[in-house]
């Protein structure tokens, strides 16, 4: 009779309690995975969205609170263009708007002559013409979600825009973006002469040292503004940091609850099985053998809970990302590393929760325990 089999016997022998404990752990695990995954998804899609147009650097405000919070003067663009090695600079104005009074969409304003328009991969239609002020291009996901196509109209702040093109993007952020000329958006938001950040494309070919030198020169030209790569830009946004901190706290609380749950369940089990533990001690089981039996039960319960929790968490992320209000912002972020991390963390928590009950089990006096039959 191996310890593993005995542990399985104990877990299966109390099916309701084991099932409830596993359920509790899986909910905690799902909560942890989904809050971590969703915030990671926001950051990841922002990072990919910045990278997708082929920009090497982003010039923006240091520690901007939100993605749309930056305000840089348009006059900075020409200065950045003067930096040797810079091929293209494009100011971008970002805002979040409610479309057709239903879903939220990120509206991005690009200068009419920007390389961003030129590198756009259109699925259908065209980009806004030079004299058009109420034309808009939608990312294919938001177009599909709104059931709109070229020629249809959408309403933003009581103003109707005609859809002239639908663009293909790979990043989640851009798939759900609405693009209009920068001057139109500036007027629309009353932010003339201002952009949210600049995207900078470098000349090619360049080696690592040259890129670093250009970055230094860009920083000098940018003055009080910072030069980021897309990953740094995404992680530097304070709002994401704040949400990440909240997500980490919620995740820690949930996993803490899982720890308490495992500890409580196994303490109850140890108390109920005092007699049995006494028998095992009387048979000569070592303290380590008894301790590892109880810990093994904790590991098995938490492992099952972790696997179920991952499945549940993936479902929660899908549902959360599917809501109208979340469209364009939240997406399930499910890398193997994140899933593995969640499973390992949950099992580690289960092991930790089992240690105290297991230690209590080894402290039982076998003679006293045997009298408890």
């Amino acid at each position: 009779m191996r310890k593993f089999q005995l542990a399985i016997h104990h877990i299966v022998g109390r099916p309701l309690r084991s099932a409830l404990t596993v359920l509790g752990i899986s909910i905690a695990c799902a909560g942890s995975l989904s809050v971590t995954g969703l915030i990671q998804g926001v950051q990841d899609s922002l990072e990919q969205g910045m990278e997708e147009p082929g920009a090497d650097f982003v010039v923006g405000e240091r520690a901007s609170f939100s993605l749309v919070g930056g305000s840089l003067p348009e006059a900075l663009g020409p200065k950045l263009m003067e930096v040797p090695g810079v091929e293209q600079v494009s100011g971008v104005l970002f805002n979040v708007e409610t479309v057709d009074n239903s879903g939220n969409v990120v509206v991005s304003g690009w200068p009419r002559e920007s390389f961003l328009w030129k590198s756009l991969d259109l699925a259908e239609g065209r980009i806004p013409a030079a004299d058009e002020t109420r034309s808009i291009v939608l990312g294919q996901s938001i177009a599909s979600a709104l059931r709109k196509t070229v020629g249809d109209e959408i309403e933003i702040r009581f103003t109707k825009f005609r859809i002239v093109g639908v663009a293909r993007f790979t990043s989640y952020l851009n798939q759900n973006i609405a693009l209009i000329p920068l001057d139109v958006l500036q007027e629309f938001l009353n932010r003339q002469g201002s952009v949210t950040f600049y995207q900078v494309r470098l000349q090619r070919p360049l080696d690592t040292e040259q890129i670093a030198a250009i970055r230094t020169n860009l920083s000098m030209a940018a003055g009080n503004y910072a030069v980021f790569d897309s990953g740094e830009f995404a992680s530097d946004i304070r709002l994401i940091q704040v949400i990440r901190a909240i997500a980490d706290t919620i995740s820690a609380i949930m996993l803490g609850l899982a720890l308490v749950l495992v500890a409580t369940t196994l303490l109850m089990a140890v108390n109920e099985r005092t007699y049995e533990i006494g028998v095992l001690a009387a048979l000569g089981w070592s303290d380590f053998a008894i301790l590892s039996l109880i810990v093994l039960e904790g590991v098995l319960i938490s492992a099952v809970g972790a696997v179920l929790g991952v499945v549940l968490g993936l479902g929660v992320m899908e549902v959360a990302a599917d809501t109208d209000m979340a469209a364009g912002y939240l997406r399930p972020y499910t890398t193997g590393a994140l899933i593995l991390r969640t499973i390992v963390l949950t099992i580690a928590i289960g092991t930790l929760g089992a240690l105290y009950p297991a230690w209590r089990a080894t402290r039982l006096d076998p003679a006293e325990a045997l009298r408890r039959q």
Partner: protein
Amino acid sequence: MALVELNQVRREFDGGRIVALHGISLTIQDGETLAIVGPSGSGKSTLMNLLCGLDHPSSGEVKFEGRPITGRLDWRRIRQNHVGIVFQSFCLLPELTARENIEVAISGNVKDSERRARSLDLLNAVGLAERANHKPPRLSGGERQRIAIARALINRPRLVLADEPTGNLDQNTGRSVLDLLLGVVRSKGAALVMITHEPAVASCCGRRIKIVDGRIVSDSDHA
């Protein structure tokens, strides 16, 4: 050299207000069969617990194979490898089958096939091979005690301790279990220490000691 030796062993409880054993000295030799008799509360079970390290003396010394044993770990090792215990209440784990209850006591890294072979061999010896996959609640009292005897012998112990092994059984079943216990223990060459109330049971052992109020009042070896 004696297998087990108790020198002036005293066991107190409740801060010394209750004295279960008053300086008992006793030696048990290899292969010996010893019955411990005495009225309820005389200290028989306390003595048995001290013989296998389930309890520890307040003073005095317990030696196993000439070596003083004091630590929990030493006693666990001795119980695992050298001592088999048969309890009055069987002490089987209800969720395990008869075979698993025997195998749970196997010490060391033993292959599954050997575990299976050893447990089935003992189940045969106690006449319960066909009950190998039955769980204790589906076994009679006599069958449970036979399983407990098989479990006590699984590690080929040098000492078997039996606390009222027939106490929970009817007379006929008790007799057959006793015969089985004595037969198997003798065939394995182990020493047997048996606690009993019943003179007829005690008379089956080669040596008898009587305990009253925590003191040995008679020892047939020294009669």
